């Protein structure tokens, strides 16, 4: 079941019997804004710390344990040009439990309390302990980012790619300077804005009755809070044309055992006669798995890296490559990476490699449907940007129509646009 229940509020119920748990997820979306990214991450943490009825972290965790280990998760992420503040609860399907317990209603109520009944100090402020604890935790997490070298290299590359988009310059988990200045009152003000104005997508996956869930949902505190003007979800795509003309490069040095390399390439938007899956197949041949050129040539044959791989981001048409290398062999590795790109551009790959790529695409699609999160993400995309999805018939059609010319075309239209090096010395 999929229906609009208020202006820019969509409810999706996906009754699937094979899972042992049920998951309810509520996504609040609005356009990314550099001034709100840190606020929204801290808000996620403060709201999941405690609620009006469970006014300490301990009390809330006790409640989750009582409900057979329900997992509450509140976080933010980038979704296209939106900041997605997602609240979810996943819980044991009651039919697998030893004791009878009304899991669906109790967990929906708990999630509702987290979203709509925050732990307040006074009108206009969150509970001071919750705010201070979560601000301190986030500050500590942000300080630790510099200790995760893979993340440092991804952030370094992202910063180069989005140098002309200030809203993308703040990482999704926030920024120390903004966090330092953020007050309890400002955060609460933002919370009120979120609750009133964000677009909302509600998803339920698991063995639930659609009609029964809708009834429970429309009688819950969610129904009392969904009216409002709420943001339209207008999609904007980032442009990287300037970087094609003048690629961005940055090198930083740290005292590390291993150096990291992060590269980005832009592929062109494909013509209608080219299979929509061709960029993904090209990526698989280049560096998408353990049969790829990068894995076999850079790692296996030349022992230059333990980790080297590429990935393709279909929304912005980017191919990125990441590798962990010895600083002394970094030039040799880049040369070898370039040779693998030329290998694909120059149509040197075998028919077996094409067949393998097709097989992997098909397998990944089918296997992904063995997870609850797959259904939730598919439903969110369906709501936000349905053009990005292929149904089963379309997918098979695109897979069957793909040939080597399509893959070569994608590779030949690929331009290097950014390179970030984190050199260990």
């Amino acid at each position, binding site marked *: 079941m999929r229906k609009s229940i208020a202006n820019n509020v969509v409810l999706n119920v996906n009754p699937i019997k094979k899972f042992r748990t049920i998951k309810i997820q509520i996504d609040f979306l609005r356009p990314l804004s550099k001034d709100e990214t840190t606020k929204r991450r801290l808000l996620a943490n403060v709201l999941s710390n405690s609620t009006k009825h469970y006014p300490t972290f301990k009390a809330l965790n006790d409640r989750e344990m009582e409900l057979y280990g329900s997992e509450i998760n509140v976080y933010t992420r980038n979704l296209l040009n939106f900041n997605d503040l997602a609240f979810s609860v996943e819980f044991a399907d009651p039919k697998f439990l030893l004791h009878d317990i009304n899991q669906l209603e109790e967990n929906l109520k708990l999630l509702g309390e987290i979203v709509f009944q925050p732990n307040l100090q006074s009108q206009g402020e969150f509970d001071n302990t919750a705010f201070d604890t979560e601000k301190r935790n986030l500050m500590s997490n942000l300080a630790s980012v510099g200790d995760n070298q893979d993340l440092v290299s991804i952030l370094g590359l992202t910063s180069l790619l989005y140098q002309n988009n200030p809203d993308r310059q703040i990482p999704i988990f926030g920024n120390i300077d903004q966090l330092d200045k953020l007050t309890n009152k400002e955060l609460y003000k933002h919370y009120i804005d979120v609750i009133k104005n964000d677009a909302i997508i509600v998803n339920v996956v698991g063995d639930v009755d659609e009609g029964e869930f809708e009834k429970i949902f429309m009688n819950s505190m969610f129904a009392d809070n969904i009216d409002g003007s709420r943001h339209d979800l207008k999609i904007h795509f980032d442009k990287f044309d300037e970087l094609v003309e003048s690629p961005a490069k940055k090198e930083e040095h740290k005292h*590390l055992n291993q150096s990291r390399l992060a590269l980005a390439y832009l592929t062109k938007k494909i013509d209608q006669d080219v299979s929509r899956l061709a960029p993904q197949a090209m990526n698989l041949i280049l560096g998408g798995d353990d*049969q790829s050129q990068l894995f076999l040539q850079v790692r296996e044959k030349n022992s230059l890296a333990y980790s080297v791989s590429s990935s393709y981001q279909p929304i912005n048409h980017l191919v990125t490559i990441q590798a962990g290398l010895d600083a002394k062999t970094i030039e040799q590795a880049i040369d070898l990476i370039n040779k693998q790109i030329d290998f694909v551009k120059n149509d040197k790959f075998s028919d077996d490699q094409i067949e393998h790529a097709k097989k992997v695409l098909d*397998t990944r699609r089918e296997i992904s449907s063995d997870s609850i999160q797959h259904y939730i993400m598919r439903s969110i995309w369906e709501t936000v940007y349905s053009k990005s999805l292929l149904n089963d018939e379309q997918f098979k059609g695109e897979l069957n129509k793909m040939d080597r010319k399509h893959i070569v075309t994608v590779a030949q239209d690929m331009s290097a646009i950014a390179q970030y090096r984190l050199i260990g010395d």
Partner: protein
Amino acid sequence: MADKLQKYSKKLPNGYEIEVVPLPGYNQVYGLAMTDFGSVNTRNGELPAGIAHFIEHKLFAKPGYDVSEKFAEYGANSNAYTSYTKTAYLFQTLDKPYENLKVLLDLVQNPHFTEENVASERGIIDQEIQMYLDMPEWVLEQRILGQLYPNDPISQDIAGTSESLQHINKDNLLDTYRQNYRPDNMDLVIVGDVDFKKIENIVGNSNFHEVPELKPIPKQVFEPIGTGGHESMEITQGRSAYGIRINADVSLPELVKLQFELNMIMETLIGEASDNYEKMSNLNIIDDSFSYNVVAENNYCFIIVSGSTNYPEKFQEYLKKHLSFNELKDVLDEKRFERIKRDAIGSYLFAQNSPDAIANQMAELYFYNVDYLRLVSLIDSISYDDVLRVAEQFVTDDNCTYYNILPK
């Protein structure tokens, strides 16, 4: 409970265990072969550190092909991992499960170590070691294990060191492989829609190698626990670990039960729903990276509590004072005990959504003579008094130590 998982199993005459779990509605078939052999099995240091992990990497190499190519040919993705006490090889596929099973058996049954392929693998593994050396959490775990079990193989990186890799060669790889990849030291779990008889037939007709005479394993004697230590790294945030060594002389199935009991004790004392967690958080001693890990594997049983902190001394002092039997007695009532049990049962159900979690847990529990499908009964059988008794016996302050990693 409705729709319980079903299992079909058989032990072959040579001791090899096969377990199959159908998972209705799932598209994939997940296969896993595990051997009861991991990084600690170096015959008390006679073998170079990292040899189990090296075997894991190099078993993929066969004459003229790599096994991952064969998996790919049959549409499967494959992987492998080495832990302190186990090595596992796995595949995940949509179709051709029987062909992929044959590839998995070829992978674990037919070693092909040559001087050339061993030499080329050293460079790859050395890069893996360097990668982990840049991860402060990983370094901290090794250091605290070095305090809990001084000079023991468990305190070495699972992958070894750049130096120990130089002592690994085709001969000690093959010898170590033969000693440990014995059918009676291995098991196989398949999760998904397959015919058990076919699986049994394929495995029964596969190429198990002749079992060599077992070399006697030198008796393992642990040195006394270290007094603690610290070091500096180029990091922005300090990390601390507090370790407790449990000298548990119990049977293998009891070890699994003990692990659940110790988890319940730690959850009560320092879990997210404990007073201590709240107090440490309010005192700014910990942040939300704070966690604990209970390990009960073969001869090793220990607890590591760790997290980021700006106050390592307060972190250690607090835990030393509050991780005690007396405190547990005060805070653990029947109601809290029931909550913790419910939480453990919930975790078991969550894991059943995932074929890989089922396969990995089932394969490992086999070596402890515990049936994965009876875990709920095992959890349910733990009494309030059991937990108090375990805490009184094991959670004492004469078996603990610490390690801190400080920013330079």
